[in-house]
């Protein structure tokens, strides 16, 4: 084995050692903490919240109508995780529908580099739209057309709810068929299927993991013709 191969082996071993493998043995009906990736998002939001007062005031003030929670969620230029460098000035709200408990569910989009887009999904209080109840972090991807039919924009578990946003293409309405066969209407806003459903445990869940449910979205155009259908996981 040469030096480079030794280096690769050592790096992989070191990285593998940082993998958190301690969550596996949780076999019970008792409540568990949210999975690690979600806690990481919370951590990111906290770090970004610290970064704004320290060095991001200029960026925040240039953000125009972008709510503060979305600013914290997006990995903007100068952000600790700025590999996507969202341009806050161009960020816009693409979808906005009534959410649970008098909140609104909003999806914001920001252009990122290189040729990426990032989206931030969060619940906003109707009375104070600039101070949303919760931010769920940003999701970034390399397909700039966020409304492309079936594109995965975000899906999160928030307390007892699955929140989701998927590209709806030219659909103007849609249905969501759940794992147990029930079909419910789903809102289309800004070319996006966006909404929330109560999380269930009808489906198998890996012990210690997060709930996930295989669902099917079907979109319809203004004339009532089916645009298409796609299956995905809410998780």
């Amino acid at each position: 084995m040469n030096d480079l191969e030794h280096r690769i082996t050592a790096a992989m071993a070191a990285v593998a050692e940082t993998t958190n493998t301690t969550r596996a043995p949780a076999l019970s009906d008792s409540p568990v903490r949210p999975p690690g990736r979600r806690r990481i998002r919370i951590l990111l939001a906290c770090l970004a919240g610290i970064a704004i007062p320290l060095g991001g005031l200029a960026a925040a003030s240039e953000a125009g109508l972008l709510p503060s929670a979305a600013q914290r969620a997006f990995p903007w230029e100068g952000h600790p995780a700025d590999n996507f460098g969202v341009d806050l000035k161009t960020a816009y709200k693409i979808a906005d529908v009534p959410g649970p408990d008098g909140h609104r569910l909003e999806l914001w989009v920001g252009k990122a580099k290189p040729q990426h887009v990032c989206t931030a999904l969060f619940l906003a209080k109707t009375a104070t739209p600039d101070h949303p109840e919760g931010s769920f972090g940003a999701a970034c991807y390399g397909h700039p057309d966020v409304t492309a039919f079936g594109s995965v924009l975000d899906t999160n578990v928030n307390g007892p709810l699955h929140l989701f946003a998927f590209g709806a293409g030219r659909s103007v309405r849609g249905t969501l068929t759940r794992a147990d066969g029930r079909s419910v209407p789903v809102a289309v806003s800004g070319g996006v299927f966006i909404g929330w459903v109560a999380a269930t445990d009808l489906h198998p869940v890996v012990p210690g993991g997060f709930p996930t449910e295989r669902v099917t979205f079907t979109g319809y155009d203004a004339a009532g013709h089916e645009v298409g259908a796609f299956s995905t996981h809410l998780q």
Partner: protein
Amino acid sequence: MSRSRDEAVTPVRAIADPDFDRTYRELWPQVARVAHLMAGSHAVGEELAQEAFLGLLRRSEPVDNPAGYLRRSVVNAALTKRRRDLFERRYVATLREQAAMPPEVDETWQALRRLPPRQRAVLVLRFYEDLSEAAIAEVLGCRPGTVKSLTSRALSRLRQDLGE
């Protein structure tokens, strides 16, 4: 009022399958590590590993070699386009990983993460899983010659990237 994510708790259904439980406990650490290396991110790797175990759980027929099945599931999931999109989405995990590593390890890891997925896959399977070219070819569903070529290109790119 909805709860914040930090407060969220989620009921998890118990799995009444002692065989699966044992397999899960035994194989989770290794599968999670391989998935982490494949994904380039702990968070995404965890997601891939979870999905692989879900796939195993949902199978109606028993699997002779669960470790092999899970490895193949993780690698294949990591190589599909949708999963690659997911990697990009889950950029957040890099924060913690970058902070925890010595400079040389970090530099090498970042170079590995920049490799195309199939090139990274062959290196993970060869240098972490210690598989032969034939075994890697079986996991990836390609010819051993393809594995050789992918390995060669990956090493060449790393040499260039790391200035060796």
